[in-house]
Structures are given as C-alpha cells and as structure tokens.
C-alpha cells in the first residue's frame, strides 16, 4: 500500500476492508489461555488427589500453591498481543479484579489460620471456584458466548456443596477432583470451542 489519493468510493471500500480484516484475526488464539489454565488445573487436581490419597497426608494440598507459580509463568511467557481490542481490555480488567480478590482472600484466610488458628484455608477452594466462575461468566457475557456464560453454574453448585460440607463434615480430598472437574467444564471445553470458532 502506498501513499496515494483515493476517490470517495475507494475510500469507503478501503475503510470497510480494513475494519473487516482487523476483525478477522481478533478471535484467533483467544481460547488458548483457557486451555492452558484448564489442562494445568485438571492435571494438578488429579495429582493432589492421588498424593493425598496415597500418603494420607493433607500437607500435599499445599501443591495448590503451584497455581500462583503457573500464573507467574503464564504472564511471563505469554507474548504481548499485536492488537488489543476494546473487548480484550474489558476482559483483562475483569480478570485483574478477580485476581486481586483471590490474593486478598488468600491473605485473609492465611492470617486467620496463623493467628486465630481457625481452619480457614479450607475456604480457599470453594471461594476460588466461586471467583473463577464469576470471572468466566462475565467473560462469556462480554464475548456473548453461551457456554462461557452458563458453564460456571457447575462451579456455583460445587461451591455451595463444598461450603455445606465444610460446616457438616469438614473438607475432603475429593474436593480436588470436583475442583478439577469444574475447571474442565469451564475452561477446557469453552477453550476448544473458541479456538474452533476462530479457525472456521
């Protein structure tokens, strides 16, 4: 493309063509972030479940801390996007807020656990699931993707189940598998759907 003058008709055609071409590759790769998180969490949930079941020692639940490490790894490794749409920006802001809520909750429950000796770390799993579910659902509303909007309902049901069980019986190792299952539904399936749509 050179710097040349255009007729009025050519101008309108050029505007339409450029807007269309920038729209086309907005969607490509959007599902990848969901897939990275989905597969990592499902794998980790199985690993934690097996380790705790085999050793009968709940200290292995601390392996969930690897989620923080993975967060850092993904943020470091992920290439800066060549184009940022308004939608991307809003979604990033939503997840930033969810991330802050997650960190804040972790700090509060850790303090309660250490100072008041209240077993509040058990709250981390249901609350994380709740935050993630809300984040996925809002992302779905922004992207107008029905699966993303409604699949987190499974995480809300699991969250209420965990909270109820916490009061009745206390935490259980099977929560890890439930957590992984919810991530599979909320992350892996929509991630593949988004990438499939983008490549069509």
């Amino acid at each position, binding site marked *: 493309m*050179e*710097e040349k003058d255009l007729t009025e008709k050519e*101008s309108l055609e050029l505007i339409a063509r450029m807007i269309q*071409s920038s729209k086309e590759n907005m969607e490509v790769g959007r599902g990848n972030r969901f897939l990275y998180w989905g597969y990592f969490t499902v794998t980790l949930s199985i690993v934690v479940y097996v380790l705790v079941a085999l050793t009968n020692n709940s200290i292995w639940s601390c392996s969930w801390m690897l989620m923080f490490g993975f967060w850092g790894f993904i943020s470091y490794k992920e290439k800066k996007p060549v184009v940022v749409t308004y939608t991307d920006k809003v979604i990033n802001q939503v997840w930033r807020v969810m991330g802050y809520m997650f960190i804040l909750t972790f700090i509060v429950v850790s303090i309660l656990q250490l100072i008041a000796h209240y077993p509040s770390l058990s709250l981390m799993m249901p609350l994380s699931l709740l935050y993630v579910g809300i984040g996925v659902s809002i992302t779905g509303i922004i992207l107008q993707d029905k699966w993303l909007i409604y699949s987190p309902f499974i995480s809300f049901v699991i969250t209420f189940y965990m909270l109820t069980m916490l009061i009745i019986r206390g935490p259980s190792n099977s929560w890890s598998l439930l957590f992984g299952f919810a991530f599979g539904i909320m992350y892996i399936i929509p991630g593949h759907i988004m990438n499939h749509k983008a490549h069509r």
Partner: protein
Amino acid sequence: MLKELDPLLHSQLRLAVVSILMSVDEADFVYLREKTNATAGNLSIQLEKLSGAGYIETKRNMEGKKTRTICRMTDKGKNAFEEYVKALKGYLFIK
C-alpha cells in the same frame, strides 16, 4: 455545499491505518504493517504525520532488545475520522 475531505485522511495508507485503529483499542507497528502491506519506512512516515496532527498517539516500549511501537487513536483523530466519513457520505449521496 459539500464539505472538503480532510487531506490528512484522504490518502490510502493513512486512511487504512486510521480505519484499523478505529476498530481496535491499540495495535502495534508490525500488525499495522502486515495489515496494510506497507513498507516499514513508508508506514513510519505516515504514522509520524498522523501523530504530528494529533490524530494518533504512539508509545514505544522495550521488549527484550527490541523496541515495540504501539499506536492508538486520540479523541481528535476519532472526531476527524467521523467527520471524514460523514463528508464521504455527502459526496456519495449516502444518508
């Protein structure tokens, strides 16, 4: 009487750049070069013209050893583009 078309926008490459930037929040230099099929030198000159007129703003970031230029429309640029499209419609008798 028909409104005169903004000469800064009424040029193939500059109009292409502005059209892309109107549909996204920000885009980097490489993306714009690929979408417009322009040479790096020519694109730089046109971006400077648009930036000089206050239609776009550019931000340079260091990424490793490379410099990355990110461009986005300013409010002035958005208004100019809207006026340009309005004027174009007048020429083409589109309501």
